[in-house]
């Protein structure tokens, strides 16, 4: 019988190794798998490559892994916010490498990773500093960049509700990067508010089908959806 539920965030992330590539969902605090990230700060894996849209928007996100010196490389679109100082410091001293990627290219590279597309062309960032050094190609619409897929060893995502098989539904704009990151990792771990029995989620409304979810962690208390607003 399929059983993806783990007792705790700590157990679900226990086997994450030094040097792993980690996709972290969320857009600022919304849809951020903060309990999984928190468990990882305690678990202590180092030299991580972290892929996440926002770095520094909230304290208990990727910023916590950075200040804990667990990160070697960041791939993101928006490395700015009240908690970005430690990132800036570490980029300056060379301990963290930063790759800034346009948000849509980031999403599409992750989607490509999940969909078996090793590379694709996009006009976004052509003729700009972020396109420098990239392979280019002319199409009838103009100059395009060749962009490569991003895959994770792990994805940490957040959803509202899961069933035992791992089907997921989300709450409003909590979706953001979570459904796409779920598709692009060897091991996708979802922290959810509740786990229901198989069949309780309307099949027409499932956003992330069970095939993409390998481990589930149920949060002990339902999160207060207003905690992270305007932090």
């Amino acid at each position, binding site marked *: 019988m399929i059983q993806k539920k783990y007792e705790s965030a700590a157990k679900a992330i226990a086997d994450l190794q030094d040097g792993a590539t980690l996709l972290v969902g969320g*857009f*600022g*605090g*919304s*849809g951020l798998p903060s309990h999984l990230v928190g468990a990882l700060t305690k678990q202590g894996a180092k030299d991580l490559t972290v892929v996440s*849209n926002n770095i520094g*928007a909230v304290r208990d996100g990727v910023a916590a892994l950075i200040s804990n010196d667990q990160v070697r490389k960041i791939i993101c*679109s*928006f*490395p*700015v916010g009240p908690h*970005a100082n430690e*990132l*800036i410091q570490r*980029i*300056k001293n060379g301990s963290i490498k*930063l790759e*800034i*990627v*346009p*948000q*849509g*290219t980031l*999403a*599409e590279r*992750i*989607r490509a990773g999940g969909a078996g597309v090793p590379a694709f062309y*996009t*006009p*976004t*960032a*052509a*003729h*700009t*500093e*972020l396109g420098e050094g990239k392979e280019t190609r002319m199409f009838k619409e103009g100059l395009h960049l060749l962009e490569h897929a991003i895959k994770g060893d792990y994805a940490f995502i957040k959803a509202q509700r899961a069933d035992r098989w791992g089907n997921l539904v*989300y*709450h*409003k*704009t*909590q*979706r*953001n*990067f*979570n*459904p*796409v990151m779920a598709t692009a990792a060897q091991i996708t771990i979802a922290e959810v508010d509740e786990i229901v029995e198989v069949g309780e989620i309307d099949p027409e409304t499932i*956003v992330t089908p069970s095939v993409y979810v390998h481990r589930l962690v149920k949060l002990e208390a339902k999160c207060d*959806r*207003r*905690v*992270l*607003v*305007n932090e």
Partner: protein
Amino acid sequence: MSEDKHKREIGWTKLELASRVALDLEDGWFVNLGIGLPTLVADVIPEGREIILHSENGLLGLGPKPEPGEEDMDLVNAGKEPITLKPGGSFFSQSESFAMIRGGHLDAAVLGAFQVSMHGDLASWKLPDAPLGRVGGAMDLTVGSKRVFLCMQHMSKGVPKIVEECSYPLTAPRCVNRIYTNLAVIDVTKDGLFVHELAPGVTFDYVQDCTAAPLKIRASSHVKAETLEVKK
């Protein structure tokens, strides 16, 4: 062109500027509003028009700010501020949201700018002295939207933002269709920058004095927005 208090007081207020932008958004358009000044446009859509606002974090049908106490951390805009969803709105993932943007499905993006050139080149993601750039969805929106409108102060700290060539890192070249500032509405065309409309009490010469690129004026200055060249 040093700091001049008088210059900053004439022309449109921020809300008037946002209203002027909103006037050109047509019934049924799908529109993305950038972070900052463009966000104000949401509050001044003319009565009776259905403009469907897109937010790149994954929604269509962005509504007004929630009442105090009604905020939901999982219902936010691209600036991570609490918002509401209008009836008819929908949620989707960021990959679907950017497929929408990059696939040319938005009728317009209204964005802010650090600099814009007379050719329509936009610089909006990185200041030369900032430790890090913050690109977000700006490059995708400028490349993907059918029309790119800028909504900005005409000058920044007394320095013109409309220039012959951008000196800041580009967001995208040749992407801006129209510039709305507190002083004027300016069209970017192959033949240069044309002043389409002046804010009340503002003269052409005054706008030119605040602009570091040559401006022109059409014989008939009230060209309608619909006649704007559309990229896609």
